[in-house]
């Protein structure tokens, strides 16, 4: 049986109190949201040491992509009493999601459609139904796996993330947030306090994933697309494409997305963008799939994500 190591447990009653604890303990403290990653990582034995070929960046990324880092925090800081980190708010051209919103709540929220449909899709397929009742969007983002479903979605949605410490609050673009497998720009004394996405009319987005199963799966490749149509909805005014599990972090495919601006959406145009996205992916071979297979998947999934995002932007069909 896997048991947890002894640690101190703190359950601050306010954000200020939480930030004071993080400031005091720094990297020795681990914020606890849903725990579906943290507790698992805390139960993992030191498997990283078993992965051969440490040293090169490629090997490090491979090992980190395979085995989540073992975590042994001295202090576990429960966020469960911090009501200010909950809730979904839509208004003033923004969608604001509290990091403690559970995946199940996020996937059911009508506030996300159609503009942030990609986030709704991602929250609805991450983990299993049991995990989605517990796992939070903030946890999924901070765990920062290259295949983290909601991370790919918010990247396509042009999100920014708010980090708070005792000293300051700062906003960071999602495109600059993830720095490596399991790594973000968060400093040990900081806490993710909000995820905010710009939303507007004539927008739609979607997230699609390929795995060998539909549940309890980690993407072989995943793709998210966001499209804003012109006012008359005849052409694409702006687009973003994000890819999962084809690089050390979730990545954007800016060239593929850039090709779509000012053009009408359609099968040929999307196939062309998907081919360009293929060139922007940097996959590796691992036990989930070969790099070559992943490149083929990038093409297929980018096409599907664009089609679905376009349908949503046009207000067509099923959500």
């Amino acid at each position: 049986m896997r048991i947890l190591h002894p640690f101190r447990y703190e359950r601050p009653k306010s954000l200020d109190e939480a930030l004071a604890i993080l400031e005091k303990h720094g990297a020795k403290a681990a914020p606890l949201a849903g725990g579906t990653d943290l507790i698992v990582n805390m139960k993992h034995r030191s498997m990283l040491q078993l992965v051969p070929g440490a040293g090169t960046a490629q090997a490090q990324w491979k090992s980190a992509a395979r085995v989540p880092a073992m975590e042994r925090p001295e202090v576990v800081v429960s966020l469960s009493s911090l009501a200010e980190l909950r809730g979904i708010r839509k208004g003033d051209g923004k969608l604001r999601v509290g990091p403690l919103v559970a995946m199940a709540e996020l996937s059911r929220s009508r506030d996300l459609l159609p503009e942030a449909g990609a986030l709704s899709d991602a929250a609805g397929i991450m983990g299993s139904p049991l995990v989605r009742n517990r796992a939070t969007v903030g946890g999924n983002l901070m765990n920062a796996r290259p295949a983290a479903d909601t991370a790919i979605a918010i990247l396509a949605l042009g999100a920014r993330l708010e980090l708070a410490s005792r000293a300051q609050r700062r906003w960071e673009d999602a495109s600059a947030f993830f720095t490596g497998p399991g790594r973000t720009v968060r400093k040990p004394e900081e806490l993710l306090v909000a995820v905010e996405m710009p939303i507007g009319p004539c927008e739609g987005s979607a997230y699609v994933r390929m795995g060998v199963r539909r549940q309890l799966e980690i993407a072989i490749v995943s793709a998210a697309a966001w499209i804003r149509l012109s006012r008359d909805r005849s052409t694409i005014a702006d687009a973003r494409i994000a890819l999962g599990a084809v690089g050390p972090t979730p990545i954007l495919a800016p060239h593929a997305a850039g090709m779509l601006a000012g053009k009408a959406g359609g099968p040929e145009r999307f196939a062309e963008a998907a081919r360009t996205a293929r060139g922007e992916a940097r996959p590796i071979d691992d036990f989930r799939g070969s790099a070559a297979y992943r490149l083929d998947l990038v093409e297929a999934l980018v096409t599907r994500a664009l089609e679905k995002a376009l349908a949503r932007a046009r207000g067509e069909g099923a959500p």
Partner: protein
Amino acid sequence: MKTLLKLKVNGRIFETAVEPQRTLVEVLREELGLTGTKQGCGVGDCGTCTVLIDGEPMNSCLVLALEAEGREITTIEGLSQGQKLHPIQAAFVEKGAIQCGFCTPGMILAAKALLDRNPNPTETEVREALAGNLCRCTGYQKIVDAVIAAGRDLAGEGGEP
């Protein structure tokens, strides 16, 4: 260091002292003697440790016991009324949905959460709702049949006084 913990399980308040690293499934089984909840993989893959927390099914192996304070916890022991099985339990027996039985408590609780929301689910809805609960014996069909039958049974009973 042990912390005093008040847990509300199946409508009863239990007071115990636990170390912070104890998970909910460990405390249910080892401190409260509620061994109906099973511990399987310990990392949220198999679902046999499923309990309801405020009505939602969750992996109790991934929840610190201290995090469950103030929440309503339902385990498999909370379903039957004395010797009378809950309709979902009865349907599992009736339809032959139990073989080794290790997944059964988790399956039944995940099914209860579904049927509480949707007493008349389609087969697809049942399979989706139980997707976090693994069974290595039955091939799932009889479990799905049992949940659908139990839903009909529960919906029928809802009309009675």
